């Protein structure tokens, strides 16, 4: 079996190249997911708080950013803010994902009826205790699918970083397609890349689904 595809698949350079690309893809997406979670929670609570200036800042940020393409934010981070490619991708993705997470957090907090707060407080729970034991658990369980789905989107959208020449998985694959230029080889590279993304994202989605089911069962039926 000496087909072009077999030849390519037996070359370690292919795996080293794609491996390095995957590493950068994960680096960009994991970092922006972590940062977005922090900023998203802050911005989301700011908006939920209804405090005059804070909530207006948060609202403006969310409404503006979530109407812009992620690709544009990555390009701006790179060309206008002048960050190195990897950071530009991370920051661009973080700016966008934070706005979406913020909306999810706000929605989750909003879904908790005011009555629950009052009940908790009347039972002598402090604010943090009410948050910790009464308000957060059901709302977090409700937020899990949306948040995880957004994280999966962040992993997928990190591929836009190829537009600024970051050597992530997509770009590495395209570069390898110049070395392995035969049609069957190029197609194989594309299929391999798709599979890598699929396995990562599908695993994450499955774990999230399990987690949600487990948490919901643990707490009796929550939501519908």
């Amino acid at each position, binding site marked *: 079996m000496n087909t072009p595809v077999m030849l390519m698949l037996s070359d370690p350079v292919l795996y080293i190249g794609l491996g390095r690309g995957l590493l950068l893809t994960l680096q960009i997406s994991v970092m922006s997911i972590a940062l977005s979670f922090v900023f998203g929670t802050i911005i989301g609570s700011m908006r939920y708080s209804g405090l005059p200036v804070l909530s207006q800042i948060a609202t403006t940020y969310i*409404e*503006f950013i*979530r*109407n*812009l*393409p*992620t*690709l*544009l934010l990555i*390009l*701006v981070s790179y*060309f*206008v803010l002048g960050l190195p490619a990897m950071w530009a991708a991370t920051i661009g993705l973080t700016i966008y994902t934070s706005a979406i997470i913020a909306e999810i957090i706000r929605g989750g907090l*909003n879904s908790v009826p005011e009555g629950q707060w009052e009940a908790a407080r009347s039972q002598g729970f402090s604010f943090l205790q009410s948050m910790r034991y009464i308000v957060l658990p059901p709302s977090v369980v409700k937020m899990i699918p949306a948040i995880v*789905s957004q994280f*999966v989107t962040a992993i*997928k*959208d990190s*591929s*836009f970083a*190829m*537009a600024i020449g970051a050597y992530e998985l*997509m770009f590495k694959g*395209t570069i390898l397609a110049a070395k392995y230029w035969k*049609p069957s080889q*190029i*197609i194989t590279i*594309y299929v391999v*890349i*798709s599979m890598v*993304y*699929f396995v990562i*994202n*599908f695993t994450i*989605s499955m774990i999230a689904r399990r987690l949600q089911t487990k948490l919901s069962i643990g707490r009796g039926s929550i939501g*519908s």
Partner: protein
Amino acid sequence: MTELIAGIGFLQEGPFAIPRWEALFSNIDVLWAGALVTLLVASLGLAMALALGTVIGVMSASHWRIPRAFARVYVEFYQNTPLLIQVFMLYNAIPLIYPGLFIPVIVIGVFGVGMYHGAYIAEVVRAGIQSIGRGQLEAALSQGFTYVGAMRFIIIPQAMRIVLPPLTNQAVNLIKNTSVIAIIAGGDLMYAGDSFAGRYGHYGPTYVVVGLLYFLMCFPLARLTRRLEDRMMAA
């Protein structure tokens, strides 16, 4: 006034210097042309996503195993792989498999976002249908409705109310995601802006205007989403 402007450093040099703005506005037609392509791809893509999403969504909520399995595979594939690689496949891999078959970039854009967001819309539709409850479907079926008829007249109209906010949200995402065709020289707003910015180095003003145009396209829909969400909360 001129002195005042002369005193503002960032208007004299750097990415936002006045000459860059002038250069952009004397070539603004380039951006209009791109914006038209984006609007075209977005509207056709949205039509396709809605049609596909409804069909796949109904399939995944159905009680027939094969359509349900097919719908599951479709949704999982499209939701778990990047839109960019799907678009690359259509752009570069299709002509390699079928030599001479060059799907026009605009059509790739429509199919790209249509199939990708179709998967998301399918999930929205499925959730909507399932929220109605099995009892209603059974009642309708026992009244002599066919499965399709029950869906058409009983389930879908009710589900619409639940489904509309996330649906408009998907429409906003779809418009934004049409920008990936910039990477395959799609001639859309992002491509036009990027090409202009790259040629002369006027990144600052170009991205500001491109951003504003995307914002103008998305904001009305985003507002509609908010209104629908609020109405649902109130109901």
